[in-house]
């Protein structure tokens, strides 16, 4: 059970980082497009 919780936690963390990166990238693209 602990092993499952660790795997799930890592999976959610990785998904969170991927989304964080993509949202930041999109914000930067919008800035550049405005210029």
């Amino acid at each position, binding site marked *: 059970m602990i092993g499952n919780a660790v*795997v799930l936690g890592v*999976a*959610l963390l990785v*998904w*969170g980082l991927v989304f964080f990166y*993509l949202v930041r990238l*999109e914000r930067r*693209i919008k800035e550049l497009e405005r210029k």
Partner: protein
Amino acid sequence: MIGRALLFAWIAGWTIAAFAWAPLVPVLGETTRVLYFHIPAAWITVLALGWSMVHSLLYLRRRRLEHDDHAAGAAEIGILFCIAATASGSLWAKAMWGSYWNWDPRETSIFFLLLIYAAYLAVRSAIDQDERRARLSAIYSAAAFVAVPFLMFVVPRIYFSLHPDPIINPRGKIDMDPRIRVVFFALLIGFTALFFWMLSLRVRVARLERRGLAAQGGAS
């Protein structure tokens, strides 16, 4: 922004459901959860490479560089998901079959697919001039996609494979527990939405790069 947050909540929520709600397949045990990542990643590979082929043909017909942006972006994302599918499949193979790599027909097919599309990126990086690069890589991408259905769907059905039956079996039915099916298709939808978001970002970056180069060219 709300759409992005909803997509994250969708993928995170169904990932939690994969652990807490969907049952395990008896033969696969705890490794059942790899299914919810491995197969959607393989699906995005086929979708992305197909998208690349369609936009390559559109480029050859209309000669608009936006189609080349779509073709190149989709191929890059397709390769990324292809690597993810290969890596997750390899870990799954170690757990189920005792070895990371077995030259199973599907493993061999995905290996060749990676080689073919790595060559596509090599072709693109070797040509500087936009129109020439777009034309040659469009011809390559359109021809390369012929191998995709053959390698992904035909070869694994011809030869003996360690892989289980495809999701849609030869009788045209989906043999899955209803809860596994719900989580699986929900994540398939989530991955598909993620692909189109990533593609839109890649296309916008390509447009900005071209605009930057055009501005530099105009200034010089």
